[in-house]
């Protein structure tokens, strides 16, 4: 197990370096001068040179990259051009909100996905299976930003039950565990949960059907094990894959929350990205994407390790 862990870690290092290079490159694929949003359009050539030097843009790329990495390792992701605050503190505040939203959405989606998937897999080709299959196809095909709008129209505009935007009363952006804040969480979380629900239901349905068709199931039945006991075996066999899907989905939601956060004005990383893009705040864009991408890499690593730890069939070669 330890050697596997070591190998998996070693394999992750080039990925982390690659991801950093891509994030670093983002500023340089942007059209025009990297300073275009800082400098006034009528800046003198001398001022421009000074600023280039101050930001380190006059050095060769590899030097800039190494310097950027060195600072990032110390938790310094640069300064936001729009607000003048440290990028790391902005990202940290936003990440908390996005984590909360994605986590609740993953749990919700996972619960219903498992439910539909198990029922559909157990009663294959029954009407329940058909309904569950239709729901999972809808889950993966629905444009979730539109679903968010529809939910706002129904539950905020028409019924006036839930608030349409924000993370708390009076535009507060820090989450607290009380009812007033919880009400703001419901609509975005439900909207977001539809994607993992569809994918989990699809995966689990196929998985359960596959497990039930294996030889050990009739053997257990012949042995006189109750249906409940057999269910236990199915769960045990499905768990590693289910966990892996859940981990990956959490990662996708973390990175993909921008659309839903825009619909609900949820003060998370997606909202931050949106602001960064339209104010051409490249350090903020770069920093946010780096943090989210590294989160995803880390999550993949954790999922792999847990999966190997609980499933002895996976070869640790």
């Amino acid at each position, binding site marked *: 197990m330890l050697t596997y862990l070591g190998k998996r870690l070693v394999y992750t290092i080039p990925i982390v370096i690659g*991801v950093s290079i891509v994030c670093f490159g983002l500023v340089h694929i942007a059209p025009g001068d990297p300073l275009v949003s800082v400098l006034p359009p009528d800046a003198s050539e001398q001022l421009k040179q000074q600023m280039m030097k101050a930001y380190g843009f006059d050095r060769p790329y590899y030097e800039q990259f190494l310097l950027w990495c060195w600072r990032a390792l110390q938790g310094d992701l640069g300064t936001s051009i729009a607000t003048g605050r440290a990028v790391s503190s902005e990202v940290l505040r936003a990440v908390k909100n996005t984590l909360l939203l994605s986590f609740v959405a993953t749990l919700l989606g996972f619960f219903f996905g498992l439910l539909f998937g198990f029922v559909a897999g157990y009663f294959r080709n029954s009407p329940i299976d058909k309904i569950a299959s239709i729901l999972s196809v809808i889950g993966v*095909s629905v444009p979730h930003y539109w679903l968010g*709008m529809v939910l*706002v129209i129904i539950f905020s505009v028409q019924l006036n039950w839930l608030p349409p935007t924000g993370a708390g009363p009076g535009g507060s952006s820090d989450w607290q565990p009380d009812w007033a804040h919880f009400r703001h969480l419901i609509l975005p979380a439900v909207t977001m949960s539809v994607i993992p629900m569809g994918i989990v239901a699809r995966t689990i349905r196929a998985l359960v059907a596959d497990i039930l068709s294996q030889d050990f199931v009739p053997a257990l039945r012949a042995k006189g094990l109750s249906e409940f006991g057999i269910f236990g075996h199915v769960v045990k066999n499905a768990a590693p894959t289910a966990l892996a899907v859940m981990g990956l989905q959490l990662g996708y939601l973390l990175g*993909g929350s921008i659309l839903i956060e825009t*619909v609900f004005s949820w003060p998370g990383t997606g909202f931050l990205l949106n602001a960064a*893009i339209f104010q051409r705040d490249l350090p903020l864009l770069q920093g946010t994407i780096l943090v989210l*991408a590294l989160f995803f890499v880390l999550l993949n690593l954790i999922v792999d390790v847990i999966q190997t730890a609980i499933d002895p069939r996976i070869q640790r070669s």
Partner: protein
Amino acid sequence: MTSVASLLPKDPAKTVAPIERSPGYWSGVIKRFGKDKLAIAAGILVLLLILMAVFAPLIAPMDPYAGRTIRRLRPVGTTGFPLGTDELGRDMLSRLIYGARYSLMMGVTPVLMAFGVGSLIGIVAGYVGGKTNTVMMRTIDVFYAFPSVLLAVALSGALGAGIQNALVSLTVVFIPPIARVAEAVTTQVRNRDYVEAARASGANGLTIIRVHVLGNVLGPIFVYATGLISVSMILASGLSFLGLGVRPPEPEWGLMLNTLRTAIYNQPLVAALPGVMIFITSISFNVLADGLRNAMDVKV
């Protein structure tokens, strides 16, 4: 005289069956697909959407760009404007019809381009193997390490808004998954006996790739790629929804959804219409791709 006729076997089952060619792969595919009613319905819907996009100028009752503020945000069912008007008084029906042009183009093009580039990368990496494979696939893994929405937003955010930049970003997003599938399938095919036999009989690498590898590999990759179109539709419209893809005043469903967001209090039904179109398109492509996968018996 009738006795002769009565001697002839009447039961057709007892007659000797004519020699039939065993049914080929494609006739099996068509047969299986023909039984899948849902997939056929989805295929017809996709076809209708494509026709709608191609013949938009003939079908659309009005100019999709012509707006008048005095008739802005009319409800669904207004005479002359069966689906209402948008926030600038433009006919919703005409804009939704024209929107198929942009939305389909923005959704399908990236997958097609990624199919070309991704297949090339995957097949070369899978066929050559060894160090080349490791270098190519590890590079692909870096892009695979980003969640797809994040990568699309990051790239088009850095490149700036616009159709071209959105298409490039989405293509980059879809290359890694396609390349991975192409590599996996090619590696399998490469080790088959018939490839070994071809090599032993003196065929060179290019001939083997062209004759033996491509024929067996492109089908599964294509099926996998069609499955990505529905994701691509949602993502492409999503980019326009964020203001990163198609720009106003062009009629694109995602962009229309964005500009109509402020209208959810006055005309909720009109505001939700463009999303219905995205949903129908995406679910049709999804069901069609599922049907193709089952009919072609592909497991990727």
